[in-house]
């Protein structure tokens, strides 16, 4: 169950020392699932997603006092979640010394390692196809296809024009089709 309290009210409560922790707990509960799934689709593995999500919320705690309310809290949280996920992947690739030639298979291997992975199922084939996409197209496709985020909102999260996002999504869809049809 998500907290339907208005974000502005939650931010107001967060700024009061007496209600700070309770307000932040409500912010976590309100956005945890959406953010978790967004992160999980990017980093694939649950443990990694959990680490990124927790670190992300700690950063939000540190920075929320300075959050400017001229942008939506929801947009700001998605932006942090996206950046943290992509940074995490970069660091993970560095730690594992993933070469450029292995870059494509890095995420596919993580996906195949999932206990529920079944290559015969279309939904898993779709996920394999998504992992073959470039980072940007993969992020846009996930936000649009699974999170069903409007382009206008996505443009604020990724700080990119709507036209560019539509083009990225279009390219991603075509690449995924090709992958599924030809495999």
């Amino acid at each position, binding site marked *: 169950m998500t907290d339907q309290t208005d974000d502005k009210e939650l931010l107001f409560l967060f700024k009061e020392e007496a209600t700070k922790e309770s307000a932040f707990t409500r912010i976590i509960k309100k956005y945890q699932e959406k953010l978790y799934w967004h992160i999980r689709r990017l980093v694939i593995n649950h443990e990694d997603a959990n680490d990124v999500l*927790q670190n992300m*919320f*700690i950063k939000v705690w540190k920075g929320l006092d300075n959050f400017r309310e001229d942008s939506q809290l929801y947009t700001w949280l998605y932006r942090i979640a996206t950046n943290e996920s992509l940074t995490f992947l970069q660091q993970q690739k560095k730690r594992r010394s993933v070469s450029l030639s292995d870059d494509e298979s890095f995420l596919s291997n993580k996906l195949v390692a999932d206990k529920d992975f079944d290559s015969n199922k279309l939904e898993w084939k779709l996920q394999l196809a998504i992992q073959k996409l470039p980072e940007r197209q993969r992020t846009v496709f996930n936000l649009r*296809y699974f999170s069903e985020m409007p382009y206008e909102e996505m443009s604020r999260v990724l700080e990119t024009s709507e036209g560019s996002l539509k083009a990225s999504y279009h390219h991603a869809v075509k690449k995924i089709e090709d992958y599924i049809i030809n495999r």
Partner: protein
Amino acid sequence: MQKSPSIYNELKELNSPLADIPATNVFTVPEGYFDVLSLDIMQAINEYRIEELNIPALERNVPEGYFDTLADEVLRKIRRSDTAPAMEEEDGFLASVRKINVFTVPENYFEGLATGIVAQVSPKQPARVIAMTNRFSIFKYAVAAGITGIIGLSLFTQFDKKTAAELVAQVTLIPANQDQSELIKNAGEIIRNDSFDKTLEALGDEEIVGYLKNNGEDINAAMVASVTDEKTLPNEDAYFTDEKTLDNFLNEQHIVQISNN
């Protein structure tokens, strides 16, 4: 999971088969994960806050009122250091020990120390002394070079005044009373054949020495000048580092002392 109409319609517009594929979430999370997630995150945040609070922990570990009296305490110590050695003030044991130097040095050690050090760092070998006789040799050599230049210059100036025959006769030591036509004839032959140098080379040492004696020239200087090339001369520093430089050089040129007498 059914797609929202906007996502479905967009994929239909793209003629994508993805429109008909259900957007199933293939990932799962541990049971009850989201129920405790906020608690886990708040616990992590509180751990971070404790770490953050630990930074000024040093302030809490100082005695009560420490900072209230710190400035006065510092000033008090400064005043003490102005009037007495701080160590004696602070440490009773050290203050009770008299500052006596237990070490000694030989008598007058420091008086002769500077001289001794200078003597050690000075060159051990005595400076080279070049004998006046040898220095004279150098001067002689320099004078010889000058005289050679004068001889050359005088020959050059006389060349215009004297006839070629007279000049050749003088150099080749032909007696003055020899037939002039013969001299002219020989001189003309030398000039035509451009064999002046060859003729000079053909002259014997005794003939040249005889000529120089008759004309009062310094034979040694002339000999040095005649057989040396400027490029083969020793470096000027060599005269000061080795007193036998000039003697060695003359020996190499096979020049022996010849008296004018």
